[in-house]
């Protein structure tokens, strides 16, 4: 029953090169997933080729002073304390939804997004509901 899959651990700096090589070998982007591990986010990029799934696992450190409170005017924060991640949307156009999701649910600031929803993809009552639990309780916004 076990489905054929491998998970490669890579450093954050190698990510874009790796993704480019997957693109060159005609892999299909299956998903991007983040997990909150407390002091870092675990990122999982899965690629599919003819039913064989390969995932890249990398860790994104969360700055110690990271806060999930919304920025001015309730919009997205461009706060330096947010963890920053390089977008792969220039390589895989389909990644925009996953990356906007990372921003909206986890508060990860995406750099170089092809289509940026500025935090409006998900209209959640609580900003960044799945973000690091170490951060102070996010405030509920009333509109």
């Amino acid at each position, binding site marked *: 029953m076990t489905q054929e899959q491998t998970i490669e651990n890579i450093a954050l700096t190698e990510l874009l090169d790796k993704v480019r090589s997957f693109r060159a070998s005609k892999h299909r982007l299956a*998903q991007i997933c983040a997990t909150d591990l407390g002091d870092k986010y675990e990122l999982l990029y899965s690629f599919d080729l003819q039913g064989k799934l390969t995932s890249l696992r990398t860790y994104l450190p969360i700055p110690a002073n990271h806060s999930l409170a919304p920025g001015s005017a309730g919009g997205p924060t461009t706060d330096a304390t947010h963890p920053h991640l390089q977008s792969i949307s220039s390589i895989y*156009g389909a990644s925009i939804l996953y990356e906007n999701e990372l921003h909206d649910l986890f508060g990860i600031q995406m750099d170089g997004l092809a289509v940026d929803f500025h935090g409006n993809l998900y209209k959640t009552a609580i900003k960044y509901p799945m973000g690091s639990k170490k951060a102070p309780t996010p405030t509920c916004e009333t509109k």
Partner: protein
Amino acid sequence: MATTIIPFGPQHPVLPEPVHLDLVVEDEKVVEARPSIGFIHRGLERLAEKKEYQEFVYVAERICGICSFIHGQTYCQAIEEIMKIPVPPRAQYLRTIWGELSRLHSHLLWLGLMADGMGFESLFMHAWRIREKVLNIIEATTGGRVIFGSCKIGGVRRDIDPDTMKTLLAQIDDINKDMHEIVNVFLSDRSVKARLVGVGTLTKDEAYDLGCVGPMLRASGVSQDMRSLGYAAFNEIKVEPIVRTAGDSYARCEVRCGELFQSVNIIRQAAAKIPPGEIAVKVTGKPTGESITRTEQPRGEVVYYVKANGAMNLQRFRVRTPTFANLPALLKVLQGCDLADVPMLVLTIDPCISCTER
């Protein structure tokens, strides 16, 4: 030329569920579509951290009303893979049969909505008349019409006894005959063709690059079906993906029509091969580990990522649903289409917004 922005949704006659599109229109042509989802975000991924992992099957099943059974099945498979639970073969076959019944009812629902979307009301009624028969089989075998509730970790909760199986097969024959009649209409009627042929063409490369899944991908000529991974009983029942190369709305309709008969075929094969025996094993302990599980839903490939750290609750539960993967392709096919075709094109990806917003 001056551009106009026309809001489409979240409330629209053609949409059963809320999704919003801002259509940038020049004259009658759509230049660009900007989606906005998240109207019904329920935070189910976060709920997994509060519910016991065995109870969460009920939640996983309620991610979507139409592909409910396969959601529950995928979740169970993910946990079974982590905990190395050997699922009895009879349970695997029952899961296959129910999974295909759910595909039948989902595709018939879609065909009905499609007919409704183009204003073919009587065809819509006929599609749903047949779907009602499928729902009756589902209710007779599982107890629920839409939420099956028959899958649990380690097996299934109900058995289908031989008598019921015989009635089921007789009903399936009847449904098969009815489906031939309406599929004939869908594939040969002039007015249906006028609305579908050549509309929203997606080439093979575009479909692949945009990460399409399911019938959307297969209609563009990519032969990919997660059932060939051999989960449940699919290692013994071989599935040949139904592929069309045209890539337009008509091809998507053809693929789904073909899959109806494929599902009937699979149900017959599974009913013939089903072994006797136990239907569930007892599950004890707590899961530790992670797994990525993929199955083929009516709408396409679903990806479950489950990470557990030995607690009663899961550490992370993530679902990538087929509609989420098909949305970029929808935006692509909307570019350059006529305003009047927008509802049809939105329908051809078989949008399931509840799925998308776990």
